[in-house]
């Protein structure tokens, strides 16, 4: 007799919370609450606004990677009515609905509830989906089935109010063995199952994570008995709740608490919390074991005509479970997209085989389980009927890509486009791709690692590459990522290539590997070997083109718009901007080196003059990008530099002479001024060194220069006395008025700004506070349009202060 299969239980107060969200939807529609206020309500409910205005993504929690066939069917049916033509499988083993309209959000959430599902905690600073390796319960190498723990911890945590109000998102994962297929060692909280003295238990990791600043988790317990899972998780949650940095969301994850406190203090605090938790005598988690049994539904067995294809498919996608006679099957879904109708067909097919037949893999594919061997032909027939190209080498659909710049504000490159381009390329290769079936290719559109490029055998993350006076989409190439208990290592950068060359690099790397398969049984071993790294590094170099790039290189995959960074949102994507800056600094250093060589060895004076001009030019241009300026000509670069650096006091006025010479074309006049030219370069390097990720210049002495500083001296001592911390001291005068427009949505914040400006006299200064996001992106620009001057804008905690001078 098979035990009833229980997934996570919805919290009792969910209905109240849905009602509250419904009221907020209505209030938002009536204009009673602002965009920001509404956002704060809906994001922790797993509802994100998409780039297409007024459409939402709903992310559905699937604890322990479980989705029952009837739940999948309901999700796909909801999607058909309220969302896109497909459902989306995520790398956190969830299912997302896309393009849901505002009016449909509540109906969708209510419908999901009827099958025991909820998007609560799908976003925001909450307990996110708790993962378990997708083959938990059926894998031969596991200590025991970990999915009941992921499910039980979900049930408990989602009933605790503090789970919805954490400093930042918070992620848990369970692995069944040291292979760490649940990625426990790169999670905020990770559990790896092990048996000690016949007792079930876990090794516990804390404070790992990827993102732009990745960090491996540290071990806090070598072994805890399974009855301790809740106490340990609760203690870690309390630690995070109390110590996470709520002010700066870019440094808020648990790994930043570890970084700040240091490992010793971090652990001390953790164990203090654990002691306190023990005093509470919480009941342990209610674990209900899950039976994995191949149920014979007694339906007719299909016959397969093409035996050869069937056998090939079995080799590629089918595996026997640790339960003899029971089989699991991988269903590839390119980039996690499954058409609604196909999802319904799959659910209907699986229903007779029982509730415990489906999981979501973290590589965004389905895993079907508990199929009796004799019914494998039925699975094959079903796939043939509904899933196009289901029998290709697995690597083709296993590539992981983040959402990319088409939907993500922070994105630089169109990563899904690159993944699809790789797929197209790999579909037409002349070597045995199945020989590289273990390969893991991960693509992120920016440094933030949503595509998990740090754990890829080959990982890519998007960047901007400057070619002459133009920019092209490009990727940094990493190799050698590995996830395994005690051996986890992040991939290392080996090169960079243009976005257009990504598919060729993947193809060529796989081909090179297949030729060396005898030496390296797995692609992972190959990409971690000296030889593999060297091969891939060499490949990157073969694509490197410095001049005369074909037109197509200026376009990213899947778009007909020429590549530009101008429209990218601010925030974490600023890493792309740092790339641009470093490129110009490289030009400066190269020119300086050549100048010194000429001086030592003698050489052409004209050449020296030209190089000096280069230093002046690149020094002028290097930091313009930090002010969102993209000069289209040399003269424009000088103009911007004057306006934003010289006139603001960030660079001494006396350097203007150098610009004038460079503008005049008589570069020989620079030869006598070499020391001044180099001093300018040094100044720019210094400014870059003290620039923070929000583009403020944190000069020695603790003050922050965000903009004009007529009164602020160039030297540390002068500026230390002149400026405190606030922006207003960086400008000539104090604000005549300070207004707080936090919580005021667009365009009312601009309306109110105009009204305040109307009250002031010309040249008076107004300081306003704005929310992050649309307000800071729009209001300063609109104020400039009106002819006023935006003197400075600076991020303070979660909001911005902006200084405006009335004209």
């Amino acid at each position, binding site marked *: 007799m098979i035990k009833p299969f229980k997934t996570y239980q919805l919290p009792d107060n969910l209905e109240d919370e849905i009602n509250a969200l419904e009221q907020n939807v209505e209030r938002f529609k009536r204009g009673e609450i602002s965009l920001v206020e509404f956002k704060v309500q809906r994001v922790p409910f797993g509802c994100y606004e998409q780039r297409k205005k007024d459409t939402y993504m709903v992310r559905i929690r699937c604890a322990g990677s479980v989705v029952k066939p009837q739940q999948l069917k309901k999700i796909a049916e909801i999607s058909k009515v309220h969302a896109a033509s497909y459902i989306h499988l995520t790398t956190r083993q969830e299912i997302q609905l896309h393009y849901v309209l505002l009016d449909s959000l509540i109906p969708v959430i209510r419908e999901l509830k009827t099958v025991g599902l909820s998007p609560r905690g799908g976003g925001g600073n909450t307990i996110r989906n708790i993962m378990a390796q997708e083959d938990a319960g059926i894998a031969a190498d596991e200590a025991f089935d970990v999915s009941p723990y992921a499910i039980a911890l979900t049930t408990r945590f989602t009933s605790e109010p503090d789970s919805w109000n954490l400093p930042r998102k918070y992620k848990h994962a369970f692995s069944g063995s040291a292979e760490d297929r649940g990625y426990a060692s790169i999670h905020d909280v990770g559990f790896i199952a092990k048996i000690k003295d016949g007792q079930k238990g876990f090794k516990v990791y804390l404070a790992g994570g990827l993102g732009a600043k990745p960090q491996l988790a540290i071990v806090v317990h070598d072994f805890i008995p399974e009855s301790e899972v809740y106490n340990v998780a609760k203690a870690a949650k309390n630690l995070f709740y109390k110590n996470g940095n709520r002010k700066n969301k870019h440094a808020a994850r648990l790994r930043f608490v570890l970084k700040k406190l240091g490992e010793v203090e971090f652990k001390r605090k953790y164990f203090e919390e654990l002691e306190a938790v023990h005093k509470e005598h919480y009941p342990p988690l209610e674990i209900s074991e899950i039976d994995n049994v191949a149920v014979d539904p007694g339906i007719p067995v299909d016959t397969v005509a093409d035996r050869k294809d069937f056998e090939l498919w079995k080799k590629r996608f089918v595996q026997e479970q640790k339960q003899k006679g029971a089989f699991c099957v991988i269903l590839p879904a390119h980039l996690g997209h499954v058409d609604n109708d196909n999802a319904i067909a799959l659910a209907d097919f699986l229903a007779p085989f029982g509730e415990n037949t489906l999981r979501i893999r973290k590589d965004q594919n389905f895993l079907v389980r508990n199929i009796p061997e004799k019914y494998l032909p039925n699975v094959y027939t079903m796939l043939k009927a509904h899933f196009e190209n289901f029998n290709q080498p697995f690597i083709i659909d296993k590539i992981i890509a983040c959402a990319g710049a088409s939907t993500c504000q922070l994105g630089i490159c169109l990563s899904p486009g690159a993944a699809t381009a790789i797929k197209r390329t790999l579909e037409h290769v002349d070597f045995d791709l199945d020989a590289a079936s273990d390969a893991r290719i991960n693509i992120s559109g920016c440094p933030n690692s949503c595509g998990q490029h740090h754990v890829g055998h080959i990982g890519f993350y998007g960047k901007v590459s400057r070619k002459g006076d133009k920019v092209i989409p490009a990727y940094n190439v990493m190799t050698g990522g590995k996830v395994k208990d005690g051996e986890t290592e992040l991939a290392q950068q080996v090169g960079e290539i243009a976005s257009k060359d990504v598919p060729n690099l993947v193809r060529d790397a796989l081909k090179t590997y297949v030729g060396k398969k005898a030496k390296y049984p797995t692609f992972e071993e190959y990409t971690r070997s000296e030889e593999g790294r060297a091969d891939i590094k060499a490949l990157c170099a073969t694509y490197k083109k410095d001049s005369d790039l074909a037109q197509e290189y200026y376009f990213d995959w899947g778009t007909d718009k020429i590549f530009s960074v101008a429209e990218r949102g601010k925030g974490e994507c600023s890493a792309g901007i740092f790339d641009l800056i470093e490129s110009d600094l490289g030009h400066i250093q190269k020119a300086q080196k050549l100048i010194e060589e000429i001086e030592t060895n003698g050489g052409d004076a004209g050449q020296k003059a030209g190089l000096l001009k280069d230093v002046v030019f690149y020094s002028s241009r290097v930091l313009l990008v930090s002010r969102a300026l993209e000069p289209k000509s040399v003269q424009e670069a000088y103009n911007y530099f004057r306006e934003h650096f010289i006139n603001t006091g960030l660079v001494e006025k006396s350097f203007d002479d150098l610009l004038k010479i460079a503008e005049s074309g008589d570069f020989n006049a620079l030869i006598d001024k070499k020391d001044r030219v180099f001093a300018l370069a040094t100044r720019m390097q210094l400014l870059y060194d003290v620039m923070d990720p929000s583009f403020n210049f944190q000069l020695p002495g603790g003050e922050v220069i965000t903009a004009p500083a007529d009164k602020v001296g160039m030297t540390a001592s002068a500026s230390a006395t002149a400026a405190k911390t606030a922006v207003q001291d960086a400008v000539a005068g104090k604000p005549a008025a300070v207004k707080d427009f936090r919580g005021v949505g667009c365009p*009312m914040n601009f*309306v*109110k700004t*105009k*009204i305040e400006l109307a009250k002031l006299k010309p040249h008076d200064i107004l300081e306003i506070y704005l929310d992050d996001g649309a307000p800071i992106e729009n209001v300063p620009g*609109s104020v400039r349009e009106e002819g006023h001057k935006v003197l400075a804008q600076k991020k303070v905690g979660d909001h911005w202060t902006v200084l405006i001078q009335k004209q």
Partner: protein
Amino acid sequence: MDLNEQQLERYSRHIILKDVSIEGQQKIMAGKVLIIGAGGLGAPAALYLAAAGVGTIGLVDDDVVDLTNLQRQVIHFTPDVGKPKVISAKEKILQMNPDVQVVTYQELVMANNIERIIKDRDYDFIIDGTDNFPAKFLVNDACVFLKKPYSHGGILRFDGQTMTYTPGNACYRCIFGFMPSLNAVPSCSQAGVLGAIAGMLGTIQAAETLKYLVGKGELLTNRLLIFNAWNMDFRTVKVKKNPDCPVCGKKPTITKLVDEEQKACDLKEN
């Protein structure tokens, strides 16, 4: 005049406009506009001016709503048939924007009352939404005498014409002199009118009014805008102040208001 929070939101799309801004909106809200004729032209003009927050709107019309009006006089609804037009229009305006003060004059404009009506609230701007030539010339003459700016408008079939008069510039009579004879212009019952034309012209008149109140933009002074909606062809004709104009010329022959003879058309164009 300070705007309250609700007004800031209501008029935010105006305030955002660089050329309107808070100062312009305040001028609109202090503005007093008289609309003569609550019909095809007056209806859209009144709706947009009310929406814009014009402080005082005067409505002049002696007629009641007729079923034939509803094809183009969008401020009146089916249940209003039989109701005085000025009352029907006032009800809609107040529903849309309770900030507006509506003054109604349920009378036919004549030589003996038009000056009193214009002076009643010392209106800043007048919209001619009348349907007949005697009234159009009367409105013109009264505005010239009282030195009041106004917007002339006329529609027929698929055609519309409009111009804006401000003291010192060309007036309606500078261009057209005297009333056409009855035979020269087809009667409305023969000609008909496409309902949407009324909206096109009435909203142009509303836009002229708002520009005048804000004090910015280029008014249709010394220019006659003519359009044909069937070909969707718009053009403006430059016109000049006529030194021989019978009402505003050097030696005016019209020195007082009189009710001229020419029957309004049967179709109740108001």
